[in-house]
């Protein structure tokens, strides 16, 4: 049985999930303090079988500590860790059904590539012949068989990454933990490696928990994206949910392309809330549980939902001066100066629309339903 080389196992892996839903990982309110500093403050998370989960957040938000609690490298002060439905909170790393890929890969400097990759199987006390066979298979499927007798010092960054991945995957763990696994790679390599890892994850059905501060990674890879800040979870959901419906001002601000406004609700009428902000008053559509007049709220508008061709439908308008234009190939981003001193981002797709020059004043508009009122906890 070689899950790393045979794509056919996907079907087998999916079937039991439908019949008997089982969680690969469950975190129940884990907490971790270092002296006065709270690194993780009550994180709860459920990871279904074979899910690709990305823990996304700025540095120091507790995502790595959370991952280390799952690995058993840190013991949470409070809360529980369940792997495959089994309580493992107090178990050491070597008694958990996980493998981990470290940020700088943590390859053993004194071992050849073949030895590194064999290490996990040796720990599982597999017969020698089987280990040799499996190592050869895995090295071949990761296209690093030619490196078998080399030591890490003589490998390139991309090669080290493959060795680290092969070393972790060969034991076929239930969960693979990845701590910024492509952060050490050249930028040009990252996209290729990301795609390979995504395909590998889908093929093997092993749950991936991927820690990153790079939202491009999180949104292009994750089935579930968990946005963290200050030791707690701000929002978890599919990439679409987080991109389209950010729950908090932090999430909206952290995710690229959002314009965040903070203000006070003036009045609420027929599904619309009027919010007074330092940049003006705006109408925001509200959901089933609308805020009350006087509430402090925040909302956001995505840069691509704004237009400079304002019509009657655009109930929210704003006049501002363009201070910079950034060109990304498919998108042209205009940076405007808002009345409250913050910036307003406006994205234009393609080359057809009229350009706005730097220094030019424009009237920009958006509809109430283009904006999202944040419903999560307010900072």
């Amino acid at each position, binding site marked *: 049985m070689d899950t790393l080389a045979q794509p056919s196992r996907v079907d087998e892996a999916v079937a039991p999930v439908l019949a008997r839903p089982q969680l690969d990982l469950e975190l129940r309110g884990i907490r971790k303090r270092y002296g006065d500093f709270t690194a993780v403050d009550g994180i709860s998370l459920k990871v279904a079988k074979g899910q690709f989960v990305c823990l996304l957040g700025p540095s120091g938000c507790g995502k790595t500590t959370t991952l280390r609690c799952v690995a058993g490298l840190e013991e949470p002060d409070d809360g529980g860790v369940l792997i495959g439905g089994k309580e493992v909170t107090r178990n*050491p790393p070597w008694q958990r059904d996980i493998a981990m890929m470290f940020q700088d890969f943590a390859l053993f*400097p004194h071992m050849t590539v073949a030895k590194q990759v064999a290490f996990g199987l040796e720990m599982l006390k597999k017969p020698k012949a089987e280990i040799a066979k499996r190592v050869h298979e895995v090295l071949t499927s990761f296209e690093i068989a030619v490196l078998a007798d080399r030591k890490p010092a003589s490998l390139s960054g991309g090669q080290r990454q493959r060795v680290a991945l092969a070393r*972790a995957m060969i034991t076929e763990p239930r969960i693979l933990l990845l701590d910024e696994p492509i952060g050490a790679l050249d930028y040009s390599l990252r996209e290729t490696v990301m795609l390979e890892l995504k395909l590998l994850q889908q093929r093997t059905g092993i749950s991936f928990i991927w820690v990153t501060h790079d939202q491009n990674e999180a949104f292009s890879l994750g089935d579930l994206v968990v946005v963290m800040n200050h030791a707690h979870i701000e929002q978890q959901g599919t990439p679409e949910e987080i991109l389209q419906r950010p729950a908090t001002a932090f999430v909206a601000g952290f995710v690229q392309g959002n314009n965040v406004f903070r203000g006070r609700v003036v009045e609420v009428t027929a599904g619309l809330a009027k919010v007074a902000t330092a940049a003006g008053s705006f109408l925001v559509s509200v959901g089933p549980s609308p805020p009350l007049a006087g509430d402090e709220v925040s909302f956001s508008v995505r840069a691509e939902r704004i237009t400079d061709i304002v019509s009657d439908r655009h109930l929210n308008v704003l006049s501002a001066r363009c201070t910079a234009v950034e060109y990304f190939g498919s998108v042209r981003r205009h940076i405007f100066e808002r009345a409250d001193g913050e910036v307003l981002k406006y994205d234009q797709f393609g080359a057809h629309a009229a350009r706005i020059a730097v220094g030019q004043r424009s009237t920009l508009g958006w509809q109430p339903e283009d904006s999202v009122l944040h419903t999560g906890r307010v900072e």
Partner: protein
Amino acid sequence: MSTIRVRSPASYWLAVPAAAWMLGVVVVPIVLLVWVSFWGGRTFSTTSPLTFDNYARFFANQTYVKLAMSTVVHTATLMAVTGVLGYCIAYFLTMKVRSPIWRMALFLAFIVPFWTSTLIRAIAWIPFLGVNGVINQTLMFVGVTQSPIEAFLYSRTGITMAQVSLYTMMAAGPVVYMLNSIAPALREAAMTLKAPPLVVFWRIVFPLTLPGVVIGQVLVFLNVMSDFATVATIGGNKHALLSNLVLLFYEGSQIRAASVVAVLLMICMLIGVVAALRVVDIRRLGADR
């Protein structure tokens, strides 16, 4: 980038002072020593014929040969004891002591005795090991023994005890350095690959500290082989090693015999160092990281 190219003529001049010093105090004396050890005949002069007689005389004497053997055994014992002890201390200091303040305090406590000279430290053992010394007093006070144990001072045991305390530091120092250079992620990676702590130590930590162990062993080896002061002080006149023999011959104006022993001692040391270098390439220390 340095403006001095590695093999430029200018860079050679930088090596001249050190080279002249080494030539004067190391190379020339050694050449003289080797030369003198082959001098034969009755007169002691540069016109003496060169023979192997001095060496033949040394190896013909069973006492000397036994002394040479016991020097090797003694040194090997010291290497083993200080190696294990030094490694334990180094591991404890770097891996187990978490607080930086405690680590510094313990490290200082560990090295403070080394601020005095070897001879003073050797002499300091006498009131400790003697018949009415601290150890015997303590043992009798605790009731382990009724009468003082005489085996401590002027004995092989006493010499070993004193030398262990003198040289454990040398075995531990390089290991501390090597342990500190192991990234914590390496041990963690091994643990997540299902390796329990003992296996992590044996498969990851120990191999990575091996160069430090070997350097420490070389230091202990060289020092114990050449340490006549401790042996003379604590061994009294009952015990001697090769290095004491050199002194004995020298004081008896038997310069040729002293040279022979000195040369043999040097050969032993060279063999030891070459053997160590074959185990670990000390020159490439840390190159893997």
